[in-house]
Structure formats: C-alpha cells, structure tokens
C-alpha cells in the first residue's frame, strides 16, 4: 500500500497518523489555501487531514493532488496540530514515491550526488530549458547579485 512506502520515507510510524483527531486545524492554517486560485483560475482548497485519512484508509494519492503539488514545507500544520504530525514530510515522501520533482529539483539532487554539495552554476545550467519555458529568465537582472563564478568543491567523504 502507498501508506507503507510513505511512512517509511517520511520517517513516521503508522500509529503516528492514527492519532489524528480530525480537528482539521491543519487545514485552517495551511499556506496552500492562501494561494486561492491556480493559473487556470480553478479554486485551490486543501485539507491535510483528509490526505492523512485517505492514506490511512489505503487510498492512493495521485500527483494531481493540490497539496502534493503545492505544499511549501512551511510546517504551519505541524505547529498547529495537537499531535505535531509532520505533514510536510509525508507530502515530501509522496512526491518522492510519485517521482514528480521539477527539473530544477532533479538538478539539485544531481549536484549533491556528483559533488556532495549543491553547485549552483551546475543546477542553473542543467535547468536552463525549464527556466526559459517557465519565464524565470525575466528575473535575471535581479539575480545578478546572487551569482558567483567559482569551481565546484568535491566532498571527499561523500554525502
């Protein structure tokens, strides 16, 4: 079942989720609900508690789920939860199992695999087509202060 893979990835135990009291305070504070509408003008409404219950009942969560897509890992849900359930880590586990990383995130992990650290010029170059397509390039003028030309440093001990 999907939940068995997810709780392993998220470092939770299944019983950590069974304590959920259904208070939905996580839904009331979730940052994703601040987004309002997506670019196609469709309402975004998420309920992290519903996601937990669906996982717990053995339902499959798909990559289209708005919480899986847009969770910002802000931990507002965890902070508000009476049981401090770490929902962002469950969502990250879901993303990992559904293999839905963006080209930038793939390049980020690729850099860590090669050098043991994030080498930003590599991450940038590997995601250039994505950055062009998604309109990031128009921010280049503002990003000049962030850029640095330096050689990568390979970690000897690996990562």
């Amino acid at each position: 079942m999907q939940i068995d893979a997810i709780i392993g990835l998220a470092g939770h135990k299944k019983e950590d989720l069974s304590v959920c009291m259904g208070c939905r305070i996580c839904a009331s504070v979730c940052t994703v609900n601040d987004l309002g509408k997506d670019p196609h003008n469709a309402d975004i409404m998420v309920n992290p508690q519903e996601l937990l219950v669906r996982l717990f009942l053995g339902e499959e969560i798909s990559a289209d789920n708005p919480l899986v897509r847009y969770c910002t890992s802000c931990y507002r849900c965890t902070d508000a939860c009476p049981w401090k359930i770490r929902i962002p880590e469950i969502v990250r586990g879901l993303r990992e199992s559904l293999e839905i990383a963006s080209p930038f995130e793939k390049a980020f992990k690729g850099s860590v695999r090669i050098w043991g650290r994030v080498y930003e010029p590599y991450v940038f170059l590997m995601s250039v087509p994505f950055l062009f397509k998604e309109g990031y390039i128009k921010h280049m003028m503002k990003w000049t202060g962030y850029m640095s030309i330096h050689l990568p440093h390979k970690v000897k001990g690996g990562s």
Partner: protein
Amino acid sequence: MMEYGYYPGCSLTGSARKLDKGVKQVLKHLGHTLREIPDWNCCGALEYGDRSELVSFSKQNLTKAGAMKEIVAPCPACYKNLKEADGEGAFTILNPLELLDKVDIKASRDLKGMVFTPYYGCVLLRPEGTAIKNRNIMEELITSFGGEVGGEKIKDRCCGGNQFFANKWATARLSTLILDQSKGTVVVFCPLCHMALHTFSKEKKVIYLTDLILYVMGEQKTL
C-alpha cells in the same frame, strides 16, 4: 568570546555569500571565532523526500565536526536539519540569531526615523523543537538601534520559497502577500526568503539582518 564550529551550507558559499560575509563580520565584532567544519556536505535542505537519507547527510556533517561541539549554522534549513540529526543532543546547534540575543553591539549609527519589517519565514520559527527560542530577536535588535518595527502580523507567514523552482506563480503570490503587508525595509535571515521576496518586490528593499547590524556598526555605508 567563544570558538564555534561553522557550517555555512551550500547557499552561503554560493548565492548567499553576502550573508556568509555578514555573519562572519558580526560574530567577529562580538569576539567569536568560527572554524569551518572540514569537508562538510549538503544537509539535504528541504528537497529530499526520503527522510532517512536527509538525516544521514546531517549526521555525516556532525561526525565531521568531531570535537567541535558548538556549531553555528546560519541557513535556517541547515540549522533545522543539523538539530534533527543531533537526536541525543551531543552538539549545540546555534543560529547566529541566538548569539545576538541580549548582546552589546557597539553602534556608531542609529536607525531613528527608519521603519523595518522583520520577516523570519518558516523553519526558523517552526516546527517546535528545532525553532529558535527568542521569536522577537529581530524586533528587539531593530528597536534597540532606534528603528521602528512594522508589519508585525506577517513575520511567520510563508514566502513560498520552497515552491520557487517548481511553481513560480505560487511563490509570487505568497511573497507578494508578505510584501504588500510589510512596511519600510523587509529584514530577513533566510537565503531562500531573500531570493523570493527580492525577486517579486517592486520597490521595497529586502536586506539581511546582518546588513542592518553592519550598517549601525559603521562597517557598511548604506542599507
């Protein structure tokens, strides 16, 4: 006056070099010395979906720190990951903000007549257990230098930085919410918050807290 192990993390050696330089200058002014952890590796940031993999990264960094039991980690994600990896509390993981709590900074300028909005972002203040203790440290510093604090209700909202390179529109919307409700100059400590807010800011200035301290110390000419 202490010597600390230093974990800069990937961003402070790249896009957030300004924060790295600022932290080193400010802590030097306070009499602290920093010794970089040799051969440190990525902490896993907030990108890794496999938690055991993520925690193993920071555990390796703690092993590399060896005898350096007090470690300064400026990047909030690195700080959180190192704290989580140090399950049994063999190390003291500190954010520079914690070293600025109730210290005497010799100021040669003040911030009278200037308004600032401190913005902490997410992982400095959440989740419980890895958050910094003093949730008002930036406000205290700004007012101690004579500055005025604005935009109190947005300090712990989310800028959406984690979605920046997946769904840019989402980050634009969340960052704009924060910028619209802020007053004066926005003061941050997180490299990702800096990039998100600076990118989507039309006229508001976004600075690191270290810039503000270096300015009052007289080591930086402008804000």
